[in-house]
């Protein structure tokens, strides 16, 4: 699906990679992007990475989101892990 938050690549295995977004680890196809490596940020759509983002580019999205969160002055939500 059209994921608008950059996902971070944790490992690459052939044409697939595991990526992490907000603590969620998902499998993604990397057939559509060249030279993906661990630590890269990608945009995921319908199970495929469609673009590699540089850390600066990824950070731009995160900072837009962070700005909205900090605007609220709320405490970060505690995870529901035991």
């Amino acid at each position: 699906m059209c994921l608008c938050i950059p996902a971070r690549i944790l490992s690459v295995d052939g044409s697939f990679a595991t990526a992490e977004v907000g603590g969620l680890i998902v499998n993604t196809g990397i057939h559509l992007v060249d030279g993906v490596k661990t630590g890269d940020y990608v945009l995921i759509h319908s199970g495929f990475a469609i673009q590699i983002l540089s850390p600066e580019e990824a950070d731009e999205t995160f900072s837009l989101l962070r700005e909205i969160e900090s605007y609220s002055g709320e405490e970060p939500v505690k995870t529901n892990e035991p």
Partner: protein
Amino acid sequence: MNRVDELVAMIRCENRSPVRFMEVCGGHTLAINQLGIRSLLPDKISLLSGPGCPVCVTGTGYIDSALRIASNPEVILTTFGDLIRVPGSEGSLETGRASGMDVRLVLSPLHALQIARQEPGRQVVFLGIGFETTAPGVAAVIRMARSEKRDNFFVLSAHKVMPPAMDALTSRGIRLDGFICPGHVSTITGSAIYKSLARDRHIPCVISGFEAADILETILLLLRQVNQGTASVEIQYTRAVRPEGNPRALQLMEEVFYRRDDWWRGLGIIPASGLGIRDEFRAQDAEYLFGRVTMQGTEPAGCACGSVLTGQMTPSECGLFGSVCTPDSPAGACMVSSEGACQSYFRFLQ
């Protein structure tokens, strides 16, 4: 002051005369409505929703074909979720499933291929719907199926490409002062596809991201072009869109699909706007096995989806809106899809 407030203030300064901007991306329809962007803008700026929702523009004929295919007991129909409630002329995929057809929701064509691997005795048909963001992934899966010599995986393609539809909109006298161009379609295609639109139709085109600041900045850039009298293509979403797009994805699309005429709800037949599966991959083409799909079907009486999709009507101006046609019992596709203008309007704006 934060970035959103800053942009809203700048928009108010920049906006002089009434303007109509149209977005053509379901993700933008949803983002604009969920964020409540319209409530922050001056009244003189109208944000219209165009034919950017793949479910909304696909004709009922496609659903009818899908149901016909799924009525074969050996078929497993795999689909993105939004399609499941779209009414065909004799029921939807949801009613088909209730009557015993094997219809399964997937989030990715990769999952559909996985099902085909797990069930070699069945025929898995994936409903290929979506624009240039989705098509390359489907192309990749078709190639994988062929290289695995998987003879039980098929795609029924209803994929379409955006620029011909945008051109058709403007050539029919629908007054638009700018396009908010789709962010992730452009990640694949790059920005050049909008150049002829900007040049020949003199409509500013700005490619937008999906966060609030992205959309607001795009509106600001469009306003500036309107005030300067220019009409060019700009990329607001620079962090994800390169002018050249994603060459690998484009190449895959080109390898597997060819352009063909296609029927769009609200716009009729648009030349070279659809994607058909090339001959070399006919072993994965559901139309080759089950017969060609006629996209255009019967529309429900009184349904104004076509006019809504082309920005000529707001959803509330449709006679069926809110009475006969609601998210619970949708008459037309625009009310079914969570990215459809009518459902968005019903849920977020009334």
